[in-house]
């Protein structure tokens, strides 16, 4: 079975249905137990869906928007659409209706597959102003039975239509298989709208060939086989989830597990026990916060054991993993630690069967990275982009350092232009930005080089080191380089700090705006009898300011040790009275900071930070609640100074 024959995802599905007929392809936890579909069953489901969609008028070139949590039938819709030549366009499920309307209109989507009533309501609201949507399909029936709208049908009905078609006309299935076998790798596989940290989000068009290359490279790097199993819990609109839970799964035949709901993802993960795991740094940060908060409440003995063996791990864990030489006593202690703390901890995280774990999408804080490697989890950081079908550079085995993203992947050429921006050329490169030739020409040069938009440098070991988004890379007034991400990651290591935004571009010194973590600070407040009834009240509490000051001092001490970074020490900070949230546009849906919007919306606070005379600053900001209702969040925020060594 040479590679050429299986050059589209639908052909891969047909192959899997024969070669791995009885291997489980997809599992979904529903009503407490895991429903299982083997590859053969998945093919039947996809054919029924595909023929059903055809009945509802989906034809070649149509765009199908997919909105919702990770559900098997939403993944199968992708394959079913590609079989008809249509193009799936997954969107972020936690976006507000208004934000979705802009993208649906810009892409000219004609069909929408919504997961449940919540998403269906948003789309119905959008239909008020954007009339092009021909039909809406929904997966979860709850609450939708009584909707009297004729342009709304459930996927059960679609599949019913598809199956009855096959019963009436025996050749329908064979005809579908023939069309699929004629599928061209050059055709468009999918359009992914980037979270767009700078400006409006852009629709990245990826061909089947480029995604196929990405999938093969990914599977080779992690040695994925059909025996592996992974969790699908990341937003389906993110290239990381698409390549990992769709493309690579079809290519290598491993099983994808969908949790019952986002809230139960951790517990479901512990049940399934994935062998390969991929997530953005935010997920790893939350795990550490969860652990530290719970260990605060643990009994005396447990806390003592935990802290003692954690130090052993921090000291010696990394090199044990890289099997460098370690003193006998340390190795013994580490072994004891394994039995008492590390294995049980991995068990609680659901990481016991993990062969390799990846992090990407954003630079991970070195302390967070080392925390997991010290526990014996084979965490690796790689650098990728939606525009590059994910893989650009990867940390090779044995050479894993917390501040680098490894070496370029086989088949990818990398170079730095004069302003330090990273450019790359790869078979996984994207075709274009949909309906946006102007930005496409800016991003893609004639010889096929693509501008990554990230500032980077090569360190002594030949590894690539990503400094920050090129646009965000600033310069202090004394001309020294100011990488905000580097400082923010150091701050975010502390469980009390959920989000941080650093300022310093064209300024004399560095200042920071902090978002406290309600879970960690709330449990601290309960233990110290600090009374609060809302997030804003807690954020304004002087004791909380003092606690954050202690963290900032620690970060400053760390920055001061290295000559290159001592100028980055933070001089003043404030705690924001509301949480930065994607609904207010301050964060992307993968919780990356939108600096341009924050600089403009909180300008009055930033100026106050740089005006030594001011110790307080009033701020009034519009905010949106969950159901899109607008409200006003105002407060008088204190500004604190920090001495610098």
């Amino acid at each position: 079975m040479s590679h050429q024959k299986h050059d589209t995802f639908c052909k891969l599905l047909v192959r899997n249905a024969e070669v791995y007929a009885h291997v489980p392809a997809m599992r979904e936890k529903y009503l407490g137990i895991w429903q299982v579909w083997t590859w053969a069953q998945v093919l039947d489901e996809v054919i029924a869906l595909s023929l059903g969609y055809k009945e509802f008028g989906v034809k070649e070139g149509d765009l199908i928007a997919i909105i919702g949590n990770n559900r098997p039938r939403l993944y199968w819709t992708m394959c079913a659409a590609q079989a008809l030549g249509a193009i799936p366009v997954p969107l972020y499920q936690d976006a507000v209706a208004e934000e979705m309307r802009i993208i649906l209109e810009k892409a000219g989507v004609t069909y929408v597959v919504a997961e449940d009533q919540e998403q269906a309501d948003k789309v119905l609201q959008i239909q008020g102003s954007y009339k092009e949507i021909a039909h809406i399909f929904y997966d979860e029936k709850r609450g939708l039975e009584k909707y009297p709208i004729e342009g709304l049908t459930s996927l059960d009905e679609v599949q019913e239509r598809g199956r009855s078609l096959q019963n009436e006309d025996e050749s329908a299935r064979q005809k579908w298989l023939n069309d699929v076998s004629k599928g061209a790798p050059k055709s468009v596989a999918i359009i992914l709208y980037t979270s767009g940290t700078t400006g409006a989000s852009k629709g990245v068009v990826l061909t089947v060939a480029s995604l196929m290359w990405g999938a093969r490279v990914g599977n080779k790097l992690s040695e994925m086989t059909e025996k592996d199993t992974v969790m699908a819990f990341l937003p389906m609109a993110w290239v990381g989830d698409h390549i990992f839970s769709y493309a690579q799964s079809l290519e290598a035949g491993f099983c994808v597990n969908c949790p019952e709901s986002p809230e139960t993802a951790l517990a479901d993960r512990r049940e399934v026990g994935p062998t390969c795991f991929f997530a953005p740094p935010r997920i790893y940060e939350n795990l550490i916060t969860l652990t530290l908060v719970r260990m605060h409440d643990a009994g005396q003995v447990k806390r003592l054991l935990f802290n003692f063996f954690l130090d052993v791990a921090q000291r010696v864990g990394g090199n044990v993993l890289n099997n460098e030489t370690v003193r006998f006593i340390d190795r013994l202690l580490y072994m004891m630690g394994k039995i008492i703390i590390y294995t049980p901890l991995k068990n609680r995280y659901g990481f016991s069967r993990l062969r390799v774990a990846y992090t990407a999408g954003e630079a991970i804080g070195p302390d967070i990275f080392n925390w997991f490697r010290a526990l014996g989890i084979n965490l690796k950081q790689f650098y990728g982009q939606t525009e590059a079908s994910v893989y650009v550079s990867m940390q090779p085995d044995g050479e894993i350092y917390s501040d680098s993203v490894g070496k370029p992947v086989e088949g990818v050429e990398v170079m730095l232009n004069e302003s330090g921006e990273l450019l790359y050329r790869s078979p996984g490169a994207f075709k274009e930005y949909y309906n946006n030739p102007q930005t496409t020409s800016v991003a893609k040069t004639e010889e096929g080089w693509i501008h990554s938009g990230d500032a980077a440098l090569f360190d002594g070991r030949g590894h690539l080191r990503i400094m920050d988004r090129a646009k965000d890379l600033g310069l202090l007034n004394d001309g020294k380089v100011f990488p905000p991400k580097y400082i923010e990651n150091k701050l975010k290591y502390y469980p009390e700090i959920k989000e941080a935004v650093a300022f310093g571009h064209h300024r004399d010194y560095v200042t920071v705006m902090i978002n406290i973590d309600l879970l960690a600070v709330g449990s601290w407040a309960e233990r110290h009898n600090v009374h609060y009834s809302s997030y804003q009240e807690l954020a304004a509490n002087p004791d909380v300011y003092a606690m954050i000051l202690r963290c900032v001092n620690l970060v400053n001490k760390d920055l001061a040790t290295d000559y290159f970074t001592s100028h980055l020490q933070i001089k003043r900070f404030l705690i924001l009275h509301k949480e930065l949230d994607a609904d207010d546009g301050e964060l992307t849906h993968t919780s990356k900071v939108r600096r341009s919007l924050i600089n403009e919306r909180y300008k009055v606070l930033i100026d106050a930070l740089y005006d030594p005379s001011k110790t307080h600053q009033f701020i009034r900001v519009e905010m949106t609640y969950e159901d899109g209702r607008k409200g006003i969040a105002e407060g008088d925020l204190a500004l604190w100074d920090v001495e610098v060594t």
Partner: protein
Amino acid sequence: MILELDSIDVVYDHVIQVLKGVSLQVPRRGIVALLGGNGAGKSTTLKAISTLLQFERGEVTKGSILFDGVRVEHSTPDELVRRGCVHVMEGRRCFEHLTVEENLLTGAFTRKEGSSVIADDLELVYGYFPDLKLSRHSLAGYVSGGIQQMCAIGRGLMARPRLMLLDEPSISLAPRVVEEVFEIVQKLNHEQGVSILIAEQNINIALKYASYGYVLENGRVVLDGEANELRNNEDIREFYLGIAGEHRKSFHNVKSYRRRKRWLA
């Protein structure tokens, strides 16, 4: 202030944390309402004040309770009654095998005065609750819910309290009876100067009589204010009174997903 709670924490069985940092004040001769759904921690708060908690394996682990300026969170129920703080428990809890009059007399257990003074008090209670006089000799177990509720309040009154804690008096009573009971309670407040702390789910009626209110939600005070302020607070109307915007909230288009409530600003 006759009663002050300063960020008390209550834990059951050393494990289950029920109240987190609850603070409230009851002014002398005032009527204050403690509002919230079931499981919000209203009864627990009252039991913490009357120290009945210790008999349910519950304890106040942090914060303090001042009654007339004296810390009482670690004293005993009978001491509280002697100081003049009586707790009328949820579900009335009359002594079923004793007659209504015997119930009232047990209310005066802690009183040292002679039987003649207690007899006068008995007449006073019958004055406020005329129906009680009619069924004074029948077993409390057999009388109607309304009578039982009046008997429980009357029993509390017999101890000549300066503060009465009423735990959901409106429960399983017909609206007309609830109105009647609350009218009498208000008369008590005006004439006898008894300050009242009412824990209620029925927010409508509670806010009609109380001057100040606290909203409890799973163990935390999430909102407090003057009664009329609370009455037209937009979130209270939505979640507790079921009024969305101007018209009454219709429940036939209830969503299958839950809107996350944010008590901000």
